């Protein structure tokens, strides 16, 4: 049996990923990043349990500008994964596969994640 003429999957280095493919791989990347971010949450809870001194250290680290920027990005990554996860659940149930619907829902996910991120930081900073 000849295997030469079989269609190949797109070569990633020369293939311009469509928007829906970018949201797809971003879901996976964001999930991995969030697993890393969970470590920070564990650290904060453990530091709180350990007493005022370790809590003060944790607050100083988490409150520093570079970490605040990271936390802001982390919030967006979280809400992206959350919104896109809901999009995936709709697909799992068999809805929203039409190309135009998939593209619109992808745009809605990014917009929704941005709004939720700003809302969360509004609560934090006010």
């Amino acid at each position: 049996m000849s295997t030469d003429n079989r269609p190949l999957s797109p070569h990633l280095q020369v293939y311009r990923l469509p928007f829906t493919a970018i949201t797809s791989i971003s879901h996976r990347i964001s999930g991995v990043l969030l697993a890393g971010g969970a470590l920070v949450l564990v650290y904060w809870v453990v530091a709180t349990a350990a007493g005022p001194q370790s809590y003060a250290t944790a607050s100083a680290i988490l409150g520093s500008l570079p970490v605040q920027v990271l936390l802001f990005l982390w919030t967006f990554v979280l809400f992206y994964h959350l919104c896109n996860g809901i999009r995936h659940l709709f697909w799992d149930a068999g809805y929203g596969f039409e190309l135009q619907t998939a593209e619109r829902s992808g745009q809605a996910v990014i917009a929704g994640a941005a709004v939720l991120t700003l809302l969360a930081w509004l609560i934090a900073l006010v």
Partner: protein
Amino acid sequence: MEFRSPIKEARGLGASHHGTSHWWAQRVTAIGMVPLMLWLVVGLAANAGGTHADAVAWLGHPVNAVIMVVLFGVLFYHASLGLQVVLEDYVSHKGVRLGIVLGVRFLALLLATTAIFAVLTIALGG
């Protein structure tokens, strides 16, 4: 002479009758994570920059402590299921893959237990 039936040979080598359980558990935890994460972000945002006493009061409240314990269980279960899929896609060496997947599982269990222990220490006035 082979005495074992074909079904006996195949059993345990594949998905036999539990092929969807990983997929389903991923979805169930995903649905659970939606309200849990919204609650977490609002809670963290509202408590951002607070004193140690504030954080202890928030985490130590019975309702919050219970939600936090559930949250850490669901979070690390969901994360280990997700990371397993990623590893299974990209790590081709069978032995290495099994090692990392097991490592992720054990680490997730350890982190979840640590975080839950910390929450209980706060809630029960340790």
